[in-house]
């Protein structure tokens, strides 16, 4: 399994500002995902981060609000733009290994509070 480093681990941000979350993986992975976990809730997929092309967003999530970059096979960023208190959540990066060692690994998450 991969080791995922996610930064920052937590932040408190002002309404209307933006925060960029970084996800660094210790090995090359084909697929990276960004999830949101609202307080006391399950995980909801925001988007699949595609290397070298635009991210694929799930229903209810748009690029203007959650722009994603994936410049290479080990790194991705998620930006939460023009934040409101409703964006207060844990944001998680995840990767999947295909083939013999198929499985999903998650980062420790970024706990975001918008005030």
């Amino acid at each position: 399994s991969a080791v995922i480093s996610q930064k920052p681990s937590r932040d408190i941000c002002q309404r209307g500002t933006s925060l960029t979350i970084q996800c660094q993986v210790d090995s090359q992975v084909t697929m990276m995902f960004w999830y949101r976990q609202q307080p006391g809730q399950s995980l909801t997929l925001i988007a699949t981060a595609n290397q070298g092309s635009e991210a694929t967003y799930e229903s209810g999530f748009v690029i203007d609000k959650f722009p994603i970059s994936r410049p290479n096979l080990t790194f991705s960023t998620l930006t939460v733009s023009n934040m409101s208190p409703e964006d207060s959540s844990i944001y998680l990066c995840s990767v999947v290994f295909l083939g013999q060692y198929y499985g999903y690994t998650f980062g420790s998450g970024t706990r975001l509070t918008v005030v």
Partner: protein
Amino acid sequence: QQQVKQSPQSLIVQKGGIPIINCAYENTAFDYFPWYQQFPGKGPALLIAIRPDVSEKKEGRFTISFNKSAKQFSLHIMDSQPGDSATYFCAASQETSGSRLTFGEGTQLTVNP
């Protein structure tokens, strides 16, 4: 909409008890069924996973039972300990397409000493 239904929402057992968490899925194309354990302030950690070609899988004190015809699977924790107190999520995906995980709603487990 691909869905995975999980129950119960919360569960309290005494130390040594055997909590059982159940999940049901709709999409018959799912072929990978993991369980994740999440402690407060941490990301989900893979506990155990099963594929539909087997009906049961054990890893230590954790067992998955799988019923393909009923489209259901469950997690059993043998000899539960207070350190097992966490939130547990079932999930499902379609390995052949490398698709993302679809999660259940989660079960908050408390194991009392």
